[in-house]
């Protein structure tokens, strides 16, 4: 009996059935004391009873799903062992198709062309504004956090601070805050872009210099604190930031050049293209950085800080650089958010946003630009879809259950993320082979 259960397919099947039962509970209507099994049966009407479980067809669907999942799982394991052996032989494995440069470039080009036409394919105003506010902006945020977490290996739980500073700086220079705009000039939101990016980068240096002397968990906690400080400051300093109401008087972007006059309105599509252009710029800049001297210094620090120091790398300098550079794209995301929605308030920049961005990066693949972009698009699309047309019984607060479940599954089956970076996959492969810890990347503790 025991041997039978231990057989891979059987154990996978049992685990899958268990997982599907939980999934079914989660997606079903919330139960109550009289109908605790409502989640399983999909109906409030069923009384709690053993047979009530099988009263509807839902369990059939989920059993079928469980069989499929366990099948995929078994297949994955037989293939996955090949990957593990590849790591164990110690050779930097030959590049998979995905790692080849033409494939990558082609993929990005295809994605870019698709993105260009997307607003014409999807004309629903809800989705058009989601494309800007929830997808493009979060791609920017994830790209920025990827520099900090993925490249330099610094766990930043307060990344939202940079986003907030970008948005508030925009409000400030356009004269929308109680604080007078610099020199009394109300600038066009366009000019807020370089100013916001520059100020956010300076802010990154200012936060980074004291905090980046810490390592691992300590850094995570301190950045968490800084994120909260920014939100609380924005909330409480009524005279400076407009307090909890923030401001809703930020002018839209506009161009006034000789005879060209164009004002970006509330319509999201023009902002979409503006953001897309910047996403492309950031992708190019960050991937050049990854393979530059700076990128190699980040890798060295991530792998072993003492060794990095011993070969002449100044860890503090490069960590602060990672903070500032990562902050730049978050700052720009702040400008777009402020310029498009014309309002900012502290509630948009809370801890869950930081966690959400981190989830995008981990899901997509730490250190992998392609992964982070795809991960952000996927997760944000799904979560916005759930918000837009929720399945029966879904409540918006359930989102984090799913997100959490997705991350847990990801950690089990694909710990390096959806599209792993080559090095990150090696790091995890070695950790599994018992050579070092994969958490080193996050905690910075090297043996």
């Amino acid at each position, binding site marked *: 009996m025991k041997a039978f259960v231990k057989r891979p397919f059987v154990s996978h099947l049992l685990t899958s059935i268990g997982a599907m039962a939980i999934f079914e509970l989660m997606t079903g209507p919330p139960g109550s004391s009289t109908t605790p099994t409502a989640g399983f049966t999909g109906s409030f009407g069923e009384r709690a009873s053993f047979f009530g479980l099988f009263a509807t067809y839902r369990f059939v669907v989920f059993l079928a799903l469980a069989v499929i999942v366990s099948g995929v799982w078994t297949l994955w394991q037989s293939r996955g062992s090949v990957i593990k052996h590849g790591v164990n*032989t*110690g*050779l*930097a494995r030959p590049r998979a198709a995905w790692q080849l440069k033409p494939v990558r470039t082609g993929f990005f080009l295809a994605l870019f062309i698709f993105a260009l036409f997307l607003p014409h394919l999807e004309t629903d105003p809800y989705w058009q504004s989601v494309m800007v506010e929830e997808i493009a902006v979060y791609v920017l945020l994830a790209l920025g956090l990827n520099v900090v977490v993925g490249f330099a290996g610094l766990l930043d739980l307060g990344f939202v601070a940079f986003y907030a500073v970008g948005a508030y700086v925009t409000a400030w220079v356009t004269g929308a805050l109680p604080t007078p705009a610099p020199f009394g000039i109300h600038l066009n939101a366009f000019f807020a872009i370089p100013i916001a990016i520059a100020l956010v980068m300076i802010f990154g240096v200012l936060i980074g210099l004291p905090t980046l002397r810490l390592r691992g968990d300590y850094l995570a906690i301190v950045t968490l604190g800084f994120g909260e400080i920014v939100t609380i400051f924005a909330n409480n300093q009524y005279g400076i930031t407009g307090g909890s109401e923030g401001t809703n008087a930020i002018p839209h972007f506009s161009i006034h050049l000789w005879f060209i006059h164009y004002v970006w309105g509330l319509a999201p599509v023009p902002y979409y293209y503006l953001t897309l252009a910047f996403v492309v710029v950031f992708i190019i800049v960050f991937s050049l950085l990854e393979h530059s*001297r700076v990128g*190699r*210094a980040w*890798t*060295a620090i991530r*792998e*072993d800080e*003492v*060794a990095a*120091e*011993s*070969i*002449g*790398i*100044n*860890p503090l300098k490069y960590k602060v650089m990672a903070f500032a550079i990562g902050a730049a794209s978050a700052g720009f995301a702040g400008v777009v958010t402020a310029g498009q929605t014309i309002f900012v308030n502290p509630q948009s920049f809370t801890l869950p946003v930081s966690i959400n961005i981190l989830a995008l990066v981990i899901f997509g693949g730490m250190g992998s630009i392609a992964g982070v972009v795809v991960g952000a698009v996927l997760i944000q699309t799904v979560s916005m879809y759930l918000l837009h047309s929720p399945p029966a019984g879904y409540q918006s607060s359930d989102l984090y259950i799913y997100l959490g479940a997705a991350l847990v599954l990801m950690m089990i089956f694909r710990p390096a993320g959806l599209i792993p970076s080559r*090095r990150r996959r*090696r*790091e995890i492969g*070695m950790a599994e082979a018992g*050579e*070092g810890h994969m958490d080193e990347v996050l905690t910075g503790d*090297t043996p």
Partner: protein
Amino acid sequence: MMLQVNDAVVRYGAITALHGITFEINQGEIVTLLGANGAGKSTTLRMLSGLHAPATGKIIFEGQDITNTKAHQFVALGIAHVPEGRRIFPQMTVEENLEMGAFTRSGSFSDDMDRMYETFPILKERRKQLGGNLSGGEQQMLAIGRALMGSPRLLLLDEPSMGLAPMIVETIFRIIGEIRDSGTTVLVVEQNAAQALRLADRGYVMENGRIVFSDKASNLLHDERVRAVYLGESVEGT
């Protein structure tokens, strides 16, 4: 005189680890620092590589006061440190590890790469393998090679024999000798006193954070006190 340490005191909080040590290293020699666990050898090396600045005292390298220089600035000065436990970059290939060693240098360093592969033929064989998958001895060679890629004039080695099989230790020490012969001055901190003294030109013996005596290595090898405390029976057999 290449490096001079003058009455250096190092404290960890309330604990004094080094009670004012003074020693020197001359151009072109191998100097070894001996002592039992906790004698202050590693602290001395931490101090010399900028990881822990002395509370009082001076470190002078080639006439320049480097007492308060930071760890990452040492390579540019011409001092390379091979840290205890090797600390190669485990997920970089051998080649990438060596390239990282030349991080502070500008211009081409392919000649030096070739030289490293000549000194350590095994590294050439393993060029594309990940550092973390090398054996202990190979990792030690890689760590030394990486340090040499910064073209230092003074090489600091912290316990290069740690955890290695005797045969490999032999090879490593032979290579350290070759490094000295090619013009790089070497300071070795070792527990393996017999081997270190056979290789070195001079030695310092530390006890409880002080240098208790020093002499030519060949004299130390036959010194009663050293034999009794550090060499024990191991020398009797040879």
